[in-house]
């Protein structure tokens, strides 16, 4: 009986998280604020970098570092929007009434993950094409992007929740998120370097494991701590 209740509770949480995700998605498609911000940021930096370096001059070390820097700062420009919007439109209180904090956090997290995936789907192939970046192990790069996105979105969502409650919203987000998400950046760059060399020069499994572990840790911490921020 008890396990049935638990199962029902879990189902309820999942459904509500999905509903919040759907609501955010609909709202996003009405204005396309975050998507535009991230995508244009990535595009502009990509073309600036390509213009400055030229097509054949950069080594794979530099190219893999630049790819992650572009993705990281592009996501920094849009991930915070999801909570700042609720605070600015004063819809946060209504949201508090209809859903539990965990459901809200999960919904917003899924939204951010999907948003980042959409951007990556557009930007990474473009980057590879424009910068003449040869990738030998495409699956490895895909795995790094997958786990890296979970880490970036997890950290970005919880920091976004923090800064939405503070007074200085714009400037603070990058300052707070950057040091926390640096392990993702460092390991992501290293795995990408690995994927761009014909013969793997280090064992990518341990790096992927650490990316995965980071994503799990930051998302768990986010779920546990979100209550305290949201009800503030």
């Amino acid at each position, binding site marked *: 009986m008890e396990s049935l209740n638990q199962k029902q509770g879990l189902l309820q949480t999942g459904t509500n998280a999905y509903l919040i995700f759907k609501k955010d998605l609909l709202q996003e498609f009405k204005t396309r604020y975050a998507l535009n911000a991230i995508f244009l940021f990535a595009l502009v930096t990509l073309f600036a970098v390509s213009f400055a370096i030229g097509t054949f001059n950069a080594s794979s070390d530099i190219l893999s570092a630049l790819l992650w820097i572009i993705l990281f700062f592009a996501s920094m420009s849009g991930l915070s929007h999801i909570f700042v919007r609720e605070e600015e439109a004063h819809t946060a209180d209504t949201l508090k009434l209809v859903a539990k904090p965990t459901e809200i956090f999960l919904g917003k997290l899924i939204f951010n993950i999907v948003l980042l995936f959409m951007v990556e789907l557009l930007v990474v192939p473009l980057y590879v094409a424009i910068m003449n970046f040869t990738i030998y192990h495409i699956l490895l790069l895909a795995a790094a992007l997958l786990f890296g996105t979970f880490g970036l979105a997890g950290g970005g969502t*919880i920091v976004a929740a923090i800064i939405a*409650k503070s007074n200085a919203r714009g400037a603070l987000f990058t300052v707070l998120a950057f*040091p926390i998400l640096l392990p993702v950046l460092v*390991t992501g760059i290293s795995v990408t370097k690995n994927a761009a060399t014909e013969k793997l020069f280090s064992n990518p499994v341990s790096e992927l494991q*650490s990316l995965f572990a980071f994503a799990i840790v930051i998302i768990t911490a986010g779920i546990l*701590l979100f209550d305290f921020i949201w009800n503030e």
Partner: protein
Amino acid sequence: MVNKLLKIGLFLILSLVIIGAFIYAPLAKGLGEFTRVLYFHVPMAWITVVAFFIGAVYSILYLKKKEHKYDLYAETANQLGFLFVVLATVTGSIWAKMSWGSFWNWDPRETSIFILMLVYAAYFALRSAVEQADRRASLAAVYDIIAFVTVPFFVFIVPRIYASLHPDPLINTQGKIHMSPKMQLVFFTSLFSYTMVFVWMLIMRIKMIKLKLKLKEMEQ
């Protein structure tokens, strides 16, 4: 009285540690005179971890009990931790200059301690950006816990993946200590007495905070 004796005892012990580090302890092979910085650098790094840990514990306590004093304790522990992380960086940098040839060359250890400083600088930036006291307290507490959760990735995982020139930390995978007995004596006394200095500092700060809170209470 006992208090005073303890403090004077601490003064004597740490003076002995300093003298021991410079005169009594033998030098490690291949490192020459630079071994001596070990007796100061490792305690600083150790206290950094302890201080940030205490800060995280107070942050958790704040989120559980919502008492204003725990927020102030967490802040003060993190401030002390920041002081010691700067000291650890400076002593480590001196050692790096002597044995690796440059003050800063982005060894994984150096990178990780730099990020550690960035994280806690961001923590103080967050504190200064929120005006309402209770809101600042809970936001800072949450950020502190997230920061502390990610610290192991810098301190333990990143240096494991990338080859580092840094000698094995105190807690290494083999669980061995590569030191002669004389060095061990000075080293562990140093570790102990510096920790005591830190504890004294923390107690003093906490007393000050309590005084301030009491004063505020009386004014009302």
